[in-house]
C-alpha cells in the first residue's frame, strides 16, 4: 500500500500499526488482475480481528479461487475515525489502501452482538450507503456471516446477503455467482435473488414480516416466488479435505490470540443448555491428528510463532487427543513451542495432559463449572459433579499450581439465592483444599469470574427471560457478601452490557430502527467499557418506541413464532423444547457419544450418519 497518502492521519493516532498492513505473510494484491475484489471486515479493532481464525480461513478460500482477491479492514479506534472524517478520507483496506466503496463485495463477520454498531460505522466510513435498499448499481454487495448471523434480523435492513453456517464452500459458490453475474451486467436485485437460490444464504429483502398487536411475530414469509421459506445452514462434512490456511499474516502488533490456532473439531458433544455454539455448530466433526499435526508444523515454521493453541469447544472430547498431543510434542519442545489447551473440561485425565503440554511454558488454568450447586449444574446440563471439580483442583495444586480461574454465570433459569451462595461455597472449598495439605511457596488465588446469563437463539434456553438489571446486580452483591476471604478474587460483568446484548440476541427487524438511530448518535465500540453507554442506548430505544424488556426480560411463548425460526440449523425446535422441559425438571441429557439424543443435526452428515457415532465405532 502507498502509505504516503495517509501519513498525516497515521502520525496523529495512537496506534498507527493498526492501519498499515504490510505484515509478514500478508497478501500483496494486484487489484488490476482481480475479477472480483472482496474486502473482509472485522467489526472491531485490528488486535481482535487479526485473532479470528474464521476470517483467515475464509480470506484464504477467496484468494485460492483465482478470480477473487480478498483484502482486510478493521474498525478504526475513535482517534483514527476522527482523522478519517476530518480529512474526508474513506475507510480503506489494508492491502491496497483502496476505500471500501471500491470493492465488489464487502463481507462482515458477526462474532458478538455488541459489534453491530461497528458494522454500521464501518459501512458509513467506507462511503457505502447504510441501508440495503439505498444501494444500487456499483455499490458493493454487503454480506455477513458468523455465529450472530443465526439471528440476522436486527441487521436485516443493512446487510444484502447473510451467510448461514460454515463458509468455506458456500462463500466460494456465492463469490463465483456474483462474479459471473457482474461480468454479465446482471442487475443488483437479480443478483440478490440468485443468491437466495444458493443453499445457505438469506436475503432479508426477499422476506416480509408481520406482527401481532402485542409485538410478537405474526408471519414471516418470502415476498417473491421461488424464494425458499426456510434457509438451511451449510456445513463442511469432511474437515480433513477442506482448505486450511497454513501460511497466515503475522501481525506486528500484539493481538489477542498471538499464536497458531488449530481447529481440532467443529461442534460439541455436550449440549450445555445456555450455549449457542454447542447447538449451532452441530453435528460434531473431527479433523484427523495427521492433518492437524501437518497443519501445525507448517504454520509454526512459516510464522515463527512460539505457541500452538488447540481451539475447539471442550477439547478433551477429541477422540484423537492423546495421539495428537504426542505427535505435536515430538517436535514442539525442540523448537521451544508451547502447546495450549484453552478449553478443557474438568475430567479425569486433564491434569496428566496439562503436565505433558506445559513442558515449555506453564500457563494458567481455567475451569468453567458455570454454576455453584449440583441442582443448577443439572438444569444447565453441565455434566460435572463437585467431586470431579475438587479432584481436578487437588491434582493441579499437587502439581505445583497455586492459582486458578473459575467461570460462572448468574441469572440462569430457575436460579435461587442458594445457587448464588453455592458459587462462594465452592470457591471456598477449593481454597480450603489448597490449605488442607502443607504447600510451599505463595498462597492460593482462586479467581471467580461471573458473567450474566443471556438467552440466545437456538438454545434450549432461547425462551427464557433474562433477569432484570436490578435482580442481576442484587445477585452480584449477594455473592460478594458471601465471599469471606481475600484468597478469592471476584470479578463480574456489567449487567447493563448483558442486557443490551440480550436485546439484540433475540431481536427482530423492528430493532433495525434502533440500530440506525444508535449509529446516527455515534454509538460504537459497545464491547469496550470506555465506550459502552447504557443510558444512550435506553434513550435510543425510548425514542424508537422500543421496550428493551420485550426482548431481554420477557419469557417467550413456546408456541410463539420466533424471528429466527426460518433458519434450519439441523437441531430441531422439538429437541430444543424437550431440552427446555428437561431443564425445568432438573434432568440431564447425556453427551452425544454416550447416547444419541436425536437432536436432528445428523441429517446434515454424509449418509445421515452422525460423525460422533461413526468415529466411536472406529475407535472401539
Amino acid at each position: 500500500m502507498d502509505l504516503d497518502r495517509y501519513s498525516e492521519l497515521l502520525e496523529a493516532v495512537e496506534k498507527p500499526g493498526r492501519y498499515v498492513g504490510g505484515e509478514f505473510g500478508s497478501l500483496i494484491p494486484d487489484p488490476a488482475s482481480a475479477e472480483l475484489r472482496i474486502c473482509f471486515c472485522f467489526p472491531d479493532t485490528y488486535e481482535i480481528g487479526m485473532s479470528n481464525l474464521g476470517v483467515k480461513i475464509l480470506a484464504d478460500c477467496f484468494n485460492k479461487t483465482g478470480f477473487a482477491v480478498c483484502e482486510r479492514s478493521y474498525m478504526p479506534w475513535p482517534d483514527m475515525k476522527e482523522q478519517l472524517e476530518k480529512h474526508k478520507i474513506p475507510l480503506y483496506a489494508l492491502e491496497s489502501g483502496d476505500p471500501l466503496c471500491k470493492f465488489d463485495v464487502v463481507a462482515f463477520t458477526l462474532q458478538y452482538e455488541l459489534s453491530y454498531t461497528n458494522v454500521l460505522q464501518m459501512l458509513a466510513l467506507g462511503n457505502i450507503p447504510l441501508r440495503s435498499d439505498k444501494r444500487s448499481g456499483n455499490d458493493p454487495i454487503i454480506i455477513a456471516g458468523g455465529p450472530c448471523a443465526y439471528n440476522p434480523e436486527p441487521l436485516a435492513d443493512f446487510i444484502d446477503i447473510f451467510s448461514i453456517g460454515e463458509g468455506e464452500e458456500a462463500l466460494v459458490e456465492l463469490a463465483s455467482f456474483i462474479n459471473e453475474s457482474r461480468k454479465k451486467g446482471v442487475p443488483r436485485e437479480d443478483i440478490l435473488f440468485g443468491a437466495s437460490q444458493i443453499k445457505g444464504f438469506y436475503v432479508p429483502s426477499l422476506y416480509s414480516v408481520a406482527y401481532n398487536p402485542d409485538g410478537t411475530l405474526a408471519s414471516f414469509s418470502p415476498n417473491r416466488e421461488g424464494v425458499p421459506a426456510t434457509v438451511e445452514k451449510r456445513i463442511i462434512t469432511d474437515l480433513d479435505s477442506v482448505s486450511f490456511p497454513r501460511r497466515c499474516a503475522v501481525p506486528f502488533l500484539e493481538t489477542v490470540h498471538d499464536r497458531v490456532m488449530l481447529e481440532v473439531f467443529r461442534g460439541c458433544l455436550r449440549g450445555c443448555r445456555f450455549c449457542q455454539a454447542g447447538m449451532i455448530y452441530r453435528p460434531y466433526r473431527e479433523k484427523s491428528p495427521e492433518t492437524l499435526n501437518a497443519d501445525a508444523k507448517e504454520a509454526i515454521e512459516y510464522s515463527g510463532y512460539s505457541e500452538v493453541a488447540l481451539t475447539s469447544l471442550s477439547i478433551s472430547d477429541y477422540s484423537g487427543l492423546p495421539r495428537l498431543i504426542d505427535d505435536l510434542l515430538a517436535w514442539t519442545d525442540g523448537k521451544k513451542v508451547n502447546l495450549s489447551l484453552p478449553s478443557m473440561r474438568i475430567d479425569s485425565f486433564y491434569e496428566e495432559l496439562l503436565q505433558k503440554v506445559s513442558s515449555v511454558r506453564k500457563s494458567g488454568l481455567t475451569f468453567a463449572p458455570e454454576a455453584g450447586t449440583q441442582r443448577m449444574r443439572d438444569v444447565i446440563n453441565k455434566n460435572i459433579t463437585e467431586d470431579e471439580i475438587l479432584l481436578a483442583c487437588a491434582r493441579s495444586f499437587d502439581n505445583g499450581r497455586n492459582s486458578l480461574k473459575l467461570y460462572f454465570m448468574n441469572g440462569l433459569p430457575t436460579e435461587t439465592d442458594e445457587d448464588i451462595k453455592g458459587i462462594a461455597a465452592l470457591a471456598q472449598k477449593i481454597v480450603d483444599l489448597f490449605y488442607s495439605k502443607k504447600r510451599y511457596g505463595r498462597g492460593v488465588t482462586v479467581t471467580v469470574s461471573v458473567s450474566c446469563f443471556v438467552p440466545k437463539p437456538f438454545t434450549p434456553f432461547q425462551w427464557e427471560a433474562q433477569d432484570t438489571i436490578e435482580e442481576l446486580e442484587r445477585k452480584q452483591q449477594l455473592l460478594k457478601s458471601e465471599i469471606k476471604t481475600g484468597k478469592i478474587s471476584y470479578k463480574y460483568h456489567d449487567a447493563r452490557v448483558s442486557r443490551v446484548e440480550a436485546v439484540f440476541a433475540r431481536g427482530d427487524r423492528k430493532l433495525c430502527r434502533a440500530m440506525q438511530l444508535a449509529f446516527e448518535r455515534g454509538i460504537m465500540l459497545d464491547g469496550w467499557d470506555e465506550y459502552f453507554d447504557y443510558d444512550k442506548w435506553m434513550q435510543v430505544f425510548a425514542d424508537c418506541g422500543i421496550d428493551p424488556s420485550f426482548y431481554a426480560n420477557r419469557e417467550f411463548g413456546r408456541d410463539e413464532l420466533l424471528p429466527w425460526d426460518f433458519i434450519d440449523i439441523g437441531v430441531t425446535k422439538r429437541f430444543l423444547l424437550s431440552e427446555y422441559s428437561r431443564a425445568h425438571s432438573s434432568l440431564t441429557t447425556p453427551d452425544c457419544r454416550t447416547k444419541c439424543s436425536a437432536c436432528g443435526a445428523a441429517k446434515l452428515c454424509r449418509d445421515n450418519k452422525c460423525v460422533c457415532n461413526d468415529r466411536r465405532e472406529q475407535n472401539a
Partner: protein
Amino acid sequence: MPDVRVVFTKTGTLRYISHLDLQRAIARLLVRSGLPIVYTEGFNPHPRLNIALPLSVYQEGEREVFDFRISEDLPISSVTESLNKAVFPGSRIVEAAYITGKSAPRSAVYRIVMETDIGEKEFSAALDGGMIVTKRSKSGEKEVDIAPMIKLLSARREGGSLTVKAELPASGNDYLNPSYIPAYFGDRIKSVRIVRENINFY
C-alpha cells in the same frame, strides 16, 4: 557460542511499528530463519536478542542493529541469507558479522528533512545561539539547550525543504531524540521526515 551483529533497514510500513512490536517481530524472524538460535533460560524462553538503539515511531532507519547468538559456527554468508529469507516487509538484512565482546552505541547520524521556510544560515545561527527546548524525561520536564549536543554535518536547502544531517549522542547517559530539532522551530515546520543513517558504537 558466537554472537552475530546484524545491520538491517527499518523503512516503509515499519516506521509505524513501535520498538516493542519490532522486538517481537525480530524474535519471530530469528525463529523462522531456521538458524540454531540460542534462547534465554528460564520460565518463558525466547531468542536471546538485543536491539542496539530504539527508534521512535514515525522514524526510519537505514542501518539499524541487533545482536543475537547462535549455537554453532556457520559461514556468515549463510547466516545473512537465512535471515534475509525470513525477514518481514519493510526490512532488509544489509549485513551480518560475528562480533567478540559487545560494544554499546555512542552516537547516531540522522537525516532530518523538514518542510519549512527556514534557510541554512538561519539554522546554523540557531545552533550557535542555543536551542532551548522542553525535554521530557522520567524525572519530569526540563528546559535544556540542545545545541551543544548537536554535531552538524550538513544543512542544505532544496525546494521547499531543509535537509539537516547531524550526529547526536546516543549513549546510556547522554541521548538526544532528533525530533527535538524540528520541535524547536514549532509551527514553522510543516512536516518532517527523520531517517537514522547510522549508529556509531564505542
